[in-house]
């Protein structure tokens, strides 16, 4: 396992450094003006000028990149850059998303012209509030809030600075950075997640002493599907880690709580998340329990192929960190399943991974899951775990602790622990 850790660290460092150097010396500057003609074919825009910079025209209309105006506003994974055209009465004439790093499975509708068209014709004086004058998108709340805030704040700033319009108070950049987190702090989603996480962790600890509490693990797994998967739609994903490594900071408090709670739990309870809360792991385990003949896989083959998830993790990590595009690495089943969106290929894969559980227990978790690989590498040694044939992931008795999902069925307190 030490070898995997070192390899992973080297891959992270090499891919980030080489990706940065390649981009620095070869990347072309993105030419946003290419889209001006598309957005407003009958308007003649001049070259960019001013501070913040904008494209003036001779018809009392300007175009600007929202990132030039309010770069501090962030969605779930960094800023959403928009090209916006407004006129001298403060009406939004057109807009287009130039770039974002939100997970496409969740925000596919946000990118469509059908959704963006609701902003066209609105005044900068409008509130731009989700579910009030802007439609929300379930499972993409943070992203659409950031989109609406970006349009509102950048348009108001430009309307005030360029056209001298009196607009409702434009919040300061510093205030805008902190306010989304403050808003989210009171959101029930965060509280519900924390309650579930802490309850499951408590039950995990209690069940190490009292085996009777193991029956609550099924409830915890079911709540994992219901709450983390279906209600919050935020299963822990390797994309969370990539976004942090790429410094794409989120405006969502839930993002930080989810990541920090799971990473912290690794140090005290190993892969507890996999065994007690992961919604796809839970679904896989419940399907594995359907009475059906399981394939007999020789132990050496099973051990050998468990390395596959580490190799996939290394490959995808290099790809994502070198290119700087987390979207390239989206193959995780839980993203497709719980965003209810994916390509035919992704859905085929999800279906295969679900059905595979009828023959191989928690197939995805054992051989392919990148989160399982990452958390396995970070897991610290723990005594008392020796698989005894009732393991949900069919671990052989002496398998490395990194493969243990801490279901606690086989846990035996050792004499030295008192």
């Amino acid at each position, binding site marked *: 396992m030490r070898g995997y850790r070192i390899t992973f660290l080297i891959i992270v460092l090499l891919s980030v450094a080489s990706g940065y150097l390649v981009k620095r010396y070869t990347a072309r500057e993105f030419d946003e003006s*290419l889209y001006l*003609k*598309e957005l407003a074919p009958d308007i003649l825009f001049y*070259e960019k000028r001013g501070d913040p910079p904008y494209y003036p025209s001779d018809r009392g209309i300007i175009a600007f990149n929202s990132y030039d105006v309010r770069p501090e506003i962030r969605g779930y994974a960094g800023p959403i850059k928009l090209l916006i055209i407004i006129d001298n009465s403060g009406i939004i004439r057109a807009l287009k998303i130039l770039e974002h790093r939100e997970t496409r499975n969740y925000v596919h509708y946000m990118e469509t012209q059908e959704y963006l068209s609701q902003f066209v014709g609105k005044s900068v004086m409008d509130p731009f509030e989700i579910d009030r004058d802007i439609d929300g998108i379930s499972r993409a709340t943070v992203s659409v809030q950031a989109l609406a805030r970006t349009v509102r704040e950048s348009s108001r700033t430009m309307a005030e600075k360029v056209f001298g319009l009196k607009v409702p108070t434009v919040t300061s950049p510093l205030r805008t950075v902190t306010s989304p987190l403050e808003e989210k702090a009171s959101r029930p989603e965060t509280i519900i997640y924390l309650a579930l996480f802490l309850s499951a962790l408590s039950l995990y600890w209690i069940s190490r002493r009292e085996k009777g509490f193991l029956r609550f693990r099924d409830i915890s797994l079911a709540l994992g599907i219901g709450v983390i998967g279906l209600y919050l739609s935020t299963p822990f994903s390797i994309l969370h880690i990539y976004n942090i490594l790429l410094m794409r900071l989120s405006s969502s408090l839930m993002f930080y709580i989810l990541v920090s709670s799971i990473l912290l739990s690794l140090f005290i309870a190993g892969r507890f998340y996999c065994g007690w809360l992961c919604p796809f792991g839970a679904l896989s385990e419940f399907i594995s329990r359907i009475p059906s003949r399981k394939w*007999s896989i020789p132990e050496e083959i099973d051990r050998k192929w468990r390395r596959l998830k580490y190799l996939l993790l290394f490959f995808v990590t290099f790809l994502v960190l070198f290119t700087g595009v987390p*979207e*390239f690495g989206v193959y995780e089943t839980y993203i497709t399943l719980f965003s209810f969106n994916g390509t035919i290929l992704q859905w085929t894969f999800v279906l*295969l991974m679900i059905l595979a559980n009828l*023959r191989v227990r928690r197939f995805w978790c054992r051989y392919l899951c990148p989160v399982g690989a990452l958390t396995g590498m970070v897991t610290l040694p723990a005594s008392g775990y020796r698989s005894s044939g009732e393991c949900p992931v069919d671990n052989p008795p002496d398998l490395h602790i990194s493969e243990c999902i801490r279901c606690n069925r086989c846990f035996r307190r050792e004499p030295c622990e008192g």
Partner: protein
Amino acid sequence: MRDRGRFYLLIVLSIFLVLLIIVNNIFQDFFSKEIGAYLERRFYYERVISKKGLSLHRAMYWREEKRE
């Protein structure tokens, strides 16, 4: 086919699908709906604007066109 063979088949199929998904992630933008509009702009630049010694900045072309 024995269980071992079935298992290998499942593993190979899974790897194949994962790789296909990743390849699709990388190249999906090249096949998006907007490719037509982008190619049109790009070809127009290569065919007309670049020959006038102007940069890719489309706005400069429109300004020139209006002056003429």
